[in-house]
């Protein structure tokens, strides 16, 4: 095989289609990307064959493997209203700026008393956040004995607000004869696979006390069946 000698200069390659495509893709990904702030906790959910996609409109309780509980609402208006209601109930004041900042936050796991300081903290500092009581992100209190079950209030108030938003949107759509697409808020539980079931039980108890019995348990996909191999 003999190479043809190139006839002077570099061979010109028409890059136009490639560049077109590259920009098209860039535009697509830029427009579809929705930026989220980093979740305060990373959990590794167990796998299952469940194929139900998590609804956009959800109230999520995350349980870390040491039992800490985090709470989040996807609907930002409902989230803000819930914070206002919680602020009144527990006598913890929030400034307007904190309220706005709060709606942008993903799930959080602090005592309501620590929440203003937590909101004011910079994003990179939130991971090591300590708070007034030096509890840090010790999870939302779920103590049923003292009783200091803030999670219950968050779920009750947040759930009511989310349903209110849903109903308002529905009425508005009915009033203007538009197609109604929003979905009812669902309660999701995201839990690390190594979590002791007792922690999950406590959270579920909180839900069932509020007469909420249906959950979406977040799992990762798998082929089917169970995957644990017996210990030798």
């Amino acid at each position, binding site marked *: 095989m003999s190479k043809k000698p190139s006839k002077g200069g570099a061979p010109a390659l028409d890059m136009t289609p490639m560049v077109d495509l590259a920009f098209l893709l860039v535009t697509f990904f830029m427009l579809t990307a929705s930026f989220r702030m980093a979740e305060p906790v990373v959990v590794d959910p167990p796998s299952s064959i469940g194929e139900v996609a998590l609804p956009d409109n959800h109230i999520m309780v995350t349980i870390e493997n040491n039992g800490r509980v985090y709470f989040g609402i996807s609907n930002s208006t409902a989230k803000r209203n819930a914070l206002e209601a919680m602020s009144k109930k527990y006598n913890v004041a929030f400034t307007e700026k904190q309220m706005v900042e709060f709606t942008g936050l993903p799930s959080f796991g602090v005592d309501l008393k620590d929440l203003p300081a937590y909101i004011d903290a910079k994003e990179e500092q939130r991971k090591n956040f300590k708070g007034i009581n030096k509890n840090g992100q010790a999870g939302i209190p779920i103590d049923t004995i003292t009783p200091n079950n803030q999670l219950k209030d968050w779920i009750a108030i947040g759930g009511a607000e989310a349903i209110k938003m849903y109903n308002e949107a529905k009425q508005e759509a009915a009033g203007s004869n538009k197609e109604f697409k929003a979905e009812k808020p669902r309660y999701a539980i995201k839990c690390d696979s190594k979590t002791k079931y007792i922690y999950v039980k406590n959270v579920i108890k909180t839900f069932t006390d509020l007469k909420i019995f249906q959950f979406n348990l977040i*799992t990762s996909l798998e082929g*089917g069946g169970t995957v644990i191999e017996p210990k030798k």
Partner: protein
Amino acid sequence: MAEISDSGGGGQKGGKKRAKKQSTRIDMTPMVDLAFLLLTFFVLTATFNKPKSMELTFPAPPENIIDQPPIKNGITFLLTKDDRIFYYEGEFKDVDDPVKGPKTDLKELSFSQTGANSLKKYVLDKSKAMQDQILALKKRFEAKQMADTTYKRMVREAKADKASFTYLIKTDDKATYRNVIDVVDELNYNAVGKYVVVDLIKPEYDLLIAKVGP
């Protein structure tokens, strides 16, 4: 190559009618570099699929525990530490009973995929009759011998059949969340319609402790 060629830059003056061959090329390499950099960034950060989830309904707490009728056709799974799982069939019996049979003894299963005592095999064996029924229905449906709605209703009825087992999933404090999900998943996988996650009762807990130690 995309290029903006600038031909005929010369004037008509002077009588020289020679078009200049020189072209103005724009070097697109940096732009393309940037485009691909951005592309890579967005591709890598994009989250395409929403997390998947498993829908599960928990039972409402009974008003009065004592009035609960015993479940006749029940299979109870007891989950405990070290990914161990035990089961017993039927009602829980504290002592040997001439009518109801001998007292409850826990048998162990494993979470492994294969093996004689795997959970997978156990559930498959137990739900065989129901699955055959559903498969037969499916065959008839695919042969267009029944309507879509009828098929769905029949499948639902097959799942809710009185004769089929009701599975109870009970855990002690040391079992992990994954075990619970695995059992529920296995039941879902085998199209079992009736299962519920409930609390342990004291005698069951004692029996479990006797098996695995505190």
